[in-house]
């Protein structure tokens, strides 16, 4: 049941967004030379079609929800499995975001090692020794591969971390 609600919410969001983006396109500066197929021509076709289809999807979701009205009572009840799964996805998402920030400020080596260590706790795994060895080895191999073999730059971070990373690459 919850997936039908999500379907409805997403279709409605896309419907609203399509209309908004259609009006944004309507405000694009006009060019006299290409007046009949201007910068807004293609985006308007896309977003008008998308509004039409997402409108149909939203109406279908509403009808489907109404047909199974009695099942709505349990729509927001989360099973333990679902909760654990959602928690793992959120934790992984949050760690990736933190890695993105750390990537710029701490530099590649520290950020990558820490990320590999922490992210391996999100998915159940018992062998702590392998966890540490893998994180260290993978970081070293990537640093060598990118900086020595491919000669491509890796982020060095800022401040004291920059000075530290300069020692390695």
């Amino acid at each position, binding site marked *: 049941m919850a997936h039908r609600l999500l379907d409805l919410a997403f279709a409605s969001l896309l419907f609203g967004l399509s209309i908004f983006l259609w009006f944004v396109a309507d405000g694009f500066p006009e060019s006299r030379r290409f007046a009949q197929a201007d910068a807004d*021509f*293609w985006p308007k076709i896309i977003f008008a079609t998308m509004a039409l289809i997402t409108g149909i999807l939203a109406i279908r979701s509403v009808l489907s929800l109404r047909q199974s009205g009695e099942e709505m009572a349990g729509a927001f009840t989360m099973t333990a499995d679902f909760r654990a799964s959602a928690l793992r996805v959120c934790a992984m998402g949050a760690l990736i975001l933190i890695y993105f920030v750390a990537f710029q400020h701490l530099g590649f080596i520290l950020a990558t090692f820490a990320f590999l260590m922490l992210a391996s706790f999100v998915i159940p795994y018992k062998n702590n020794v392998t966890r540490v060895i893998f994180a260290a080895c993978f970081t070293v191999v*990537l640093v060598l591969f990118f900086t020595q073999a491919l000669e491509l*730059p890796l982020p060095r971070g800022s401040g004291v971390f920059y000075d530290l990373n300069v020692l390695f690459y």
Partner: protein
Amino acid sequence: MLEAYGSAIAYLFGNPSSFLLIIFSVVWGIAFGSVPGLTGIVGVALLIPFTFVFDPTAGLLLLSGVYVGSTFGGSISAILFNTPGSPEAACTALDGYPMAKKGQAGKALGIALASSAIGGIFGTIVLMLLAPPMAQFALNFGPPEYFALAVLGITAISAIGGGSVLKGLVAGLLGLGIATVGLDPITGTERYTFGNLSLLTGISFVPAIIGTFALAEVLQRAGERTSTADVITDVSTKLPSMKEFLATRYTLLRSSSIGAFIGALPGVGATTAAFISYSEAVRWSKRPQDFGTGVAEGIAAPESANNSAVGGSMIPLLALGIPGSATTAVMLGGLTIHGIIPGPLLMETNTQLVYTVFIGMFIANILMLVFGIRAARYFALVLKAPYALVGPAIVVLCMTGVYALNSNIVDVGVMLAMGAFGFLLRKLKYPIASFVIGLVLGPIAERSLRQGLVISDYDYWDFVSRPITAVLLIASLVSLIYGFYGQWKRHQDAQAAKMAAG
């Protein structure tokens, strides 16, 4: 043409490292194909940033080798633990897993490997024979024809994907919409940048596809309970004997032909080819009742078809510049970062690249056979690798690869945003393939439509009534009708089954 092949062979032997690249790419492809969820698309997407350090020919050799290897790789997990590593191997599990359960896992892998190699070589020969004349024919194409081809690509992949056609179309439109961000290609007007200067050049394609496929996959897998306990890893591949091989020769020939033909149709691809070949194998068999219990033809048919479709799907990419599948759409991104625009002129301006890829794919199929015999047991071990280590490592590869492209952190941000978006689309069952095809074909479709209208003096009838354009647009309409009909039929069947059960 012979001169072009001569030049291609000279390139390969003049650059012995090309052979190493092909070997690496086949092994990489088999490894990615064999792990459920990773798929060849992720394998290709992750390698794109690394192709930057090679010349375009070597880069494309690398990507096409991964495509070849991954299509076979999917069958390993399908046979060993009934979970196809890639969608195109789904059909292989129907007979591969029952055969493995009978204690004949090695034989099943051997049939899959030999059939994959034969199908792959057949598809590559079709590619070699058909791509040049098709490119010659495509020189007659004007903007209206290209617009119609782009429309066919999006509608076909939305309609034939097997899910909701409307959701497929929305996903395609989302891709088209995102492709409009940046400067208008004709007037130079800013569109949807909302004052952000880094969006002026548009949404970078490579970070977008890496995010949509690889990162979204890691997020998805993080939420699943993954078990590697049931994998059969103690196997040694046994190629079929000459007698067994001859017994499946008609199946192999028929399935390879179906695969090459279906692969060449924009938007259809290897999965459909595998299923159609399987049903044809059942239809032509003298003992159709044995299918599903572990018969050799049940493995040979889908495997030869899906590998043959690889060569077939390269035809529209190289000859027309229109990707026929999600993997070739990703490969198109890899080509564009080298400044190469696939299409009819590519055959004339970059003959060495095109013909080297033909030969490279041929070699990749042979190498797949060589490595597959000895290494299947090691590829089976890949399935045992804990995702707690593999998943985060893929995130690191995505971030590092995208950053290394332009040393631009905004690209990494784009990849993360597209990863989250791709995850949402997957969860809500909006097909990612349609989204990526839309993203790739967006600029082609828009430019062709507007140029075509200008040329025809904004006469819409003149635009759509050109013979090839009309045929392609009618084919788009037919594919949509077919998709809606298929969806309606599935719904009716489900209702009938529900009524019968309750």
